[in-house]
């Protein structure tokens, strides 16, 4: 059931209890998790945090912890599936689900005891009403009772009643069949399209605000969660703008102290500011040229995979009067005179080249003299850390690294704590501080390494997109477009991860739409496959909705994949929380594809 008052029905319920947090591997979930952790620290609510990457891990984690814990909080997982059936919990386990995946499964909505949904009842939920789906069992009992009576004693007297009873029975059965058919139809319509709702991080920030325990850190995490939804194309533009406005109110509320000249904050404090900034990814941590070259929006508008496109880019830069030498060096080292009006200059020029939306509303943070980040920078850095394809790190290691990168303070290692305990005798102060500083590693370093990884990822995406378009790897299969990344493609390891592959998919579709002349192809969705594990022989398949300005981002591939897999009995693994991402055995690829084509045409 939906929770009406998040403070009373969620926070005060878990206030003196111990909770398990099961967190999905996406940035929004990470941010929501950090906000919730900060709240729990304030109120000393004991918890255990377990990262889960798919349904199987969710099940395992639940089994491991169900003896010791009663309350489970699921972040960005669990709403779109019948949780009680999947996990088979005891009657006293209670689940609090804060998930952006829609549609919410009807069982989760109408279960009053064990499932509590921390989801706002937005307009876009459109849950079917109770009577349409669930029917009381009593009526069926009556039917069968009557039938057995009539079946056992057919005598003359009863004949008259028989006819009436038989008619009524037939009537009831017909009504039941009709009702069931309608139910199937309603459920099919409801569950057909998968989409995303309000960010989980924003939900938890609202909880913090209601408790008046919100801080700037939490606000920043909420902003990052929202920006993640926008960067990975999960919500519509309208929703993004509306949510930004909500966040802007909070930001101005937190910022009012800055304006007071006498009591201004120190430079080390965190300051969040609203920016109407350029849509160039990571441009402040890169060179302007690289950023324009590797950002999806600009690269698709200029068509930078063609020679013509590159010439246009040079023209564009010349039009703005930016010398190449300046533009190719690190952004921080560009001349101040160029940097001053950069945004306006770029906006003016890009309007001439047909890029009307080069600027986007977003937020930036800065603390200390060196550290300035935009929300999208943080999202890209953390996403790159979360999905880094290094051999030694397991997925939970990456999760921990990404979680660390979101915090601001210097990290204290366990060794430091040990040494502090041993230092009960007075040592000379200088050696003490030397020890302390040499053992601390700042989380900002981790963030910077994330930014470096993100740059590599973006360059890889750009190159893969260019090669796919130039070699015509995207084929139209009728109802959708299809692209398969061969094993030998450079950087294909990066694309064995779901978020990176989805990003590549979206860029590719956008680029394709800009490059093709076929009007019909522009309206098609895209299915993309990439090798996931060479030893096991699996591929990862992702489907995204068609690209358009006013798209509502509703994805029907989840159900389509399921049905296609069933009908061809392909060996698939529907493990991800996003149902439009599956794993498939390489051998079954072609028959799966054929089934999908027949299904959708």
């Amino acid at each position, binding site marked *: 059931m939906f929770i009406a008052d998040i403070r009373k029905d969620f926070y005060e319920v878990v206030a003196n209890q*111990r909770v398990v947090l099961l967190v999905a591997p996406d940035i929004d979930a990470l941010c929501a998790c*950090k906000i919730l*952790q*900060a709240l*729990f*620290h304030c109120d*000393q*609510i*004991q*918890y*255990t*945090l*377990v*990262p889960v990457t798919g349904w199987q891990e969710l099940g395992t984690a639940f089994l*491991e*912890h169900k*003896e*010791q814990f009663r309350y489970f909080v699921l972040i960005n997982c669990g709403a779109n599936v019948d949780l009680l059936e999947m996990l088979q919990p005891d009657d006293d386990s209670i689940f609090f689900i804060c998930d952006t995946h829609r549609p919410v499964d009807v069982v989760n909505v109408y279960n009053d005891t064990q499932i509590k949904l921390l989801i706002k009842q937005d307009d876009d939920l459109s849950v079917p009403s109770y009577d349409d789906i669930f029917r009381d069992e009593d009526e069926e009992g009556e039917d069968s009772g009557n039938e057995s009576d009539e079946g056992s004693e057919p005598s003359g007297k009863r004949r008259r009643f028989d006819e009436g009873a038989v008619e009524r029975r037939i009537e009831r059965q017909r009504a039941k069949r009709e009702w069931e058919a309608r139910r199937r139809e309603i459920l099919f319509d409801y569950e057909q399209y998968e989409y995303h709702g309000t960010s989980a991080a924003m939900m938890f920030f609202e909880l913090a605000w209601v408790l008046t325990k919100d801080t700037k850190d939490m606000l920043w995490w909420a902003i990052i969660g929202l920006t993640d939804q926008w960067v990975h194309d999960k919500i519509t533009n309208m929703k993004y703008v509306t949510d930004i406005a909500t966040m802007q109110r909070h930001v101005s509320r937190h910022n009012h102290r800055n304006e007071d000249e006498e009591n201004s904050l120190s430079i080390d404090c965190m300051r969040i500011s609203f920016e109407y900034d350029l849509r160039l990814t990571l441009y402040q941590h890169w060179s302007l040229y690289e950023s324009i070259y590797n950002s999806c929006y600009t690269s698709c508008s200029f068509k930078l995979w063609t020679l013509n496109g590159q010439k246009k880019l040079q023209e564009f830069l010349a039009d703005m009067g930016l010398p190449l030498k300046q533009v190719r060096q690190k952004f921080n080292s560009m001349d101040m005179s160029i940097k001053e009006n950069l945004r306006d200059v770029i906006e003016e020029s890009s309007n001439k080249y047909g890029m009307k939306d080069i600027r986007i509303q977003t937020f930036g943070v800065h603390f200390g003299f060196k550290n300035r980040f935009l929300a999208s920078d943080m999202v890209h850095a953390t996403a790159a850390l979360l999905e880094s394809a290094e051999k030694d790190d*397991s997925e*939970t*290691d990456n*999760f*921990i690294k990404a979680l660390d990168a979101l*915090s601001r*303070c*210097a*990290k*204290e*290692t*366990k060794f430091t*704590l*040990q040494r502090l*305990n*041993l230092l*009960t*005798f007075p*040592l000379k102060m200088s050696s003490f501080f030397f020890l302390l500083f040499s053992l601390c590693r700042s989380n900002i370093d981790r963030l910077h390494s994330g930014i470096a990884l993100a740059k590599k990822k973006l360059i890889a995406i750009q190159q893969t997109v260019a090669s796919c378009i130039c070699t015509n790897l995207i084929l139209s299969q009728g109802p959708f477009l299809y692209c398969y990344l061969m094993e030998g493609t450079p950087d294909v390891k990066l694309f064995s991860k779901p978020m990176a592959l989805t990003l590549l998919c979206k860029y590719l579709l956008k680029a394709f739409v800009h490059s093709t002349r076929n009007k019909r192809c522009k309206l098609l969705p895209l299915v993309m496959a990439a090798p996931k594990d060479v030893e096991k022989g699996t591929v990862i398949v992702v489907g995204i909705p068609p690209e358009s300005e006013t798209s509502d981002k509703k994805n029907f591939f989840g159900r389509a994949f399921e049905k296609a897999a069933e009908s061809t009995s392909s060996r698939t693994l529907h493990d991800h929380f996003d149902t439009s991402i599956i794993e498939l055995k390489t051998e079954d690829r072609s028959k799966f594809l054929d089934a999908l084509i027949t299904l959708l045409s």
Partner: protein
Amino acid sequence: MFCEKAIELIRELHRMSDGQLPAFNEDGLRQVLQEMEALYEQNQSDVNEAKSEGRAKLIPSIKLRHCCLLRNQRCVTAYLYDRLLRIRALRWEYGSVLPANVRFHMCAEEWFSQYKKSLASFMRSLGGNEGLDITQDMKPPKSLYIEVRCLKDHGEFEIDDGTVILLKKNSQHFLPRWKCEQLIRQGVLEHVVS
């Protein structure tokens, strides 16, 4: 020269940085005591001679030897007292059961166990019926609970109120500080500051 052995003992302790306990230098101590005995014998005989024969010339040497004796005594007591203080610190550092590598160097087991006993009875006498463990939280803690991250699979871990926590690699927990300190020292958990 007199008193050199005694200074050796002191230097040995001074060389070892604070907190470490070198092996008990029985040899050195015995040598110092022997020296003291020799000095004392000589002094005795000289005093008797001076008294009986009235030779005042012996008085300075008697005085010298006496000073050396006092110096040796002071050095030896300083040595023993400093070792005592270090052993006491071990109790506060490691708890009542010392790890094997530390116990190797100690010879004053008796004193240590006596000290343990008196500390325990003192702690029991505080704080009403249950007693108060004053060896925890030597510095006032910032918070009662800390966030820890599990570095290796440690299995199940029980807290004071009976609840059991499963310590799996890379899971994070928010637990009472005093329960975690032991595991942090062992390297199973890592304190996370955020």
